[in-house]
């Protein structure tokens, strides 16, 4: 048994909390769901392996990689790494600002360095573990079809995960020291999201800007650029150290040992270097949250407006004043950058580019509306106040729906208008699609509405897995419908019908639907 106050003791404490937290997140607090979760996990595992088989199965026979293969594998690794850094940066920022048990820990007579060392290691472990879990189906499929040397990729993923955690730690601490605790909270969230999206978006933008029209027209194939002649021409020689991660993935023992060792060394160095001052940073972060409250304009004249309008205004005002929420919700609009660029590029020749971006717009609108609808409907911080106000319940709901759709119209109008300048039919379809996807996502949130704090936005998915999955499937269905309709295809009726079926099933599965039945 470990002695209280030691690193091992803290590690046991942390792992127990992490396990219970994960279990609660997966089962949403219901013990009876454990078996269902296990069955779902099994189904997901099998599906992921089948998916991996269809996507990477054909690459299993690579023995002597050529330059194109190395570039593609490095690109994939870089994308995964950027996502890991993004996740780790979010986790570190959360550790700075979440109080939870920090008051107890910081006031106890144990060295805070120990608990923060354990927390940093736990964070690195969870990031790496998640990466291993996600990569496992592809690695297993490759190993089964191509040989055991592919199992070395597990080691490479661990190396990438640990180095990503170390970089995130260094980034967070550097931001804290340079821009201060108050700004770090917001900036780190934005940086995390940008890093997460940067590589994918960057490759797309590069493909669009390249003169290769083949690449431009195959936007869906994100990595087409990596295997292009232009990319191969500027890539380093085949024996360059740049390809070590790719070689490690392919089973080169030297590259694997080097990558793994480098990842672990930088992580341990980061923990040793930063854990000592982490407690101070946490205390400063708390002080920053409490000091100097924000003020609105001093002169305030009350405005006369009907209750519904007052409710809409409140929703918009709260959203506008919460930069963290804005960054969380509007970050999805980052993914509109490539299609916007594509639209701009295709402006001159009025090509099929306009048609290509319709589904992207519709998908983004559905996702954004889901987030906003959760904030307006479930994330109401004064539910009792609203419920005791002399307004009919349906008027309250109407006002909240209008607030969500209003925000969507505001966010997507510039894109639709720009599209209309290129081609009117896709613009018309995009407008209808954006509204339909947004309305569907909002309706799902209405069916699954629950009472929560706005600050719990990040964990909204855990409150109802069905709502989250339904929201995503519905957005995909409407995006496909709009895409096919913009291309004048009658096949649009198929995803459209699927979209309606998804909504029907979701209604049946929702608490309100179940109560009605």
């Amino acid at each position, binding site marked *: 048994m470990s002695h209280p106050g030691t690193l091992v003791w803290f590690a046991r404490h942390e792992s127990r909390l992490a396990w219970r937290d994960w279990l609660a997140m997966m089962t949403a607090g219901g013990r009876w769901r454990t078996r269902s979760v296990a069955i779902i996990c099994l189904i997901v595992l099998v599906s992921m392996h089948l998916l991996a088989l269809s996507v990477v199965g054909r690459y299993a026979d690579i023995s002597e990689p050529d330059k194109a293969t190395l570039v593609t594998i490095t690109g994939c690794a870089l994308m995964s790494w950027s996502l890991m850094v993004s996740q780790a940066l979010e986790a570190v920022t959360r550790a700075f600002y979440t109080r939870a048990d920090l008051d107890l820990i910081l006031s106890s007579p144990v060295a805070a360095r120990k608990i923060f060392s354990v927390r940093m290691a736990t964070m690195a472990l969870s990031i790496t573990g998640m990466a291993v879990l996600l990569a496992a189906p592809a690695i297993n499929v490759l190993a089964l079809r191509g040989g055991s040397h592919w199992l070395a990729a597990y080691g490479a993923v661990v190396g990438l995960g640990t180095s990503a955690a170390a970089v995130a730690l260094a980034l967070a601490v550097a931001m804290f020291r340079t821009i201060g605790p108050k700004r770090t909270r917001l900036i780190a969230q934005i940086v995390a999201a940008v890093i997460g999206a940067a590589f994918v978006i960057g490759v797309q933008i590069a493909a669009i800007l390249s003169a290769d029209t083949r690449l431009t027209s195959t936007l869906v194939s994100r990595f087409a650029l990596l295997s292009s002649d232009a990319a191969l021409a500027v890539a380093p020689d085949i024996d360059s150290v740049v390809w070590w991660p790719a070689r490690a993935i392919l089973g080169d023992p030297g590259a694997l040992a080097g990558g793994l060792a480098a990842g672990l060394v930088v992580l341990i160095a980061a923990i040793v270097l930063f854990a000592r001052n982490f407690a101070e940073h946490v205390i400063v972060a708390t002080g920053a949250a*409490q000091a100097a*409250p*924000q*003020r*609105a*304009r*001093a002169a*305030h*004249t*009350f*405005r*006369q*407006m*009907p*209750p519904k*309008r*007052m*409710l809409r205004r*409140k929703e918009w*005002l*709260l959203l506008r*004043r*919460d930069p963290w929420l804005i960054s969380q919700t509007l970050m999805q609009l980052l993914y509109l950058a490539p299609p916007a660029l594509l639209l701009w590029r295709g402006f001159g020749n009025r090509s099929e580019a306009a048609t290509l971006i319709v589904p992207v717009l519709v998908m983004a609108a559905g996702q954004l509306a889901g987030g906003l609808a959760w904030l307006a409907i479930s994330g109401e*911080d*004064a*539910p*009792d*106040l*609203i*419920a*005791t*106000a*002399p*307004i*009919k319940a349906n008027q309250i709901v109407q006002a909240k729906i209008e607030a969500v759709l209003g925000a969507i119209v505001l966010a997507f109008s510039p894109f639709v208008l720009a599209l209309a300048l290129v081609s009117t039919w896709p613009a018309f379809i995009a407008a209808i699609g954006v509204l339909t996807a947004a309305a569907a996502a909002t309706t799902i949130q209405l069916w699954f509405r629950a009472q929560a704090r*706005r600050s719990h936005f990040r964990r909204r998915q855990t409150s109802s897995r069905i709502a989250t999955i339904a929201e995503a499937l519905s957005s995909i269905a409407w995006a496909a419908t709009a895409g096919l309709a913009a291309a004048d295809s009658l096949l649009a009726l198929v995803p459209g019908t699927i979209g309606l079926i998804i909504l029907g099933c979701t209604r049946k599965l929702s608490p309100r639907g179940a109560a009605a039945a």
Partner: protein
Amino acid sequence: MISPAPVIEPALAIRGLVKCFNRPAVDGLELTVRRGEFYTLLGPNGAGKTTTLRMVAGLLRPDAGTILIHGIDALAEPVAAKGCVAWISDEPMIYDKLTPLEYLEFVAGLWGIDAGVAQARAHELIGWLGLGAHATQYCEGLSKGTRQKVALAGALVHDPSLIILDEPLTGLDAGSARQVKGVLRERVAQGGTVIMTTHILEVAERMADRIGVIAAGRLIAQGTLAELRDQAGRGATSLEDTFLALVAEQAAAA
């Protein structure tokens, strides 16, 4: 010819109120609160006080019974009934990213109060409750006591004739508690009605015109402090003795 005296409806009349959550939380409750009265509802934890008041405020739907607020059937005409009621719980219902002034504007808008009237009243309340220094500051940085005062100002800005408070003094310091109590007494002096639950018996003893004791979802005793003492028997001298004697008696009977 002498015309008949006008019938003055009570501020609140509850008849046969029932609400069950697995077991009865409120079990055929009968309660009448007169206009211009400060009524305090006491009871042990889980007695059904909060459930009762949440049903009156329209936050819970009863399984059976009627609720009349100033003669308006709160279940049949909820919007009309809510128009004259304010509800305050122990957790202040305010928005972190609004200032107290903006919050008051929002509440006044929900209750359809004229903007000019609401603004004047809001400034008056801000001054009265000592919130001047915080009026244009986001509520997120305010202390629990200050947040509770903002919520109280929100409850008063639409000039309700019935104020319902569920443990409003929880977590307040002595100064803030005194301020809140002063504001509530002032409302009653102006003809308003206040119904409050509290675990602080001293507050009930000092402030209430009448006290109701609720246990197992039923009203087991009601009256002024003297009337309750009589009901509890000779041994009871303070409200604490009286309350404990009444609850023990009810538990023994059950």
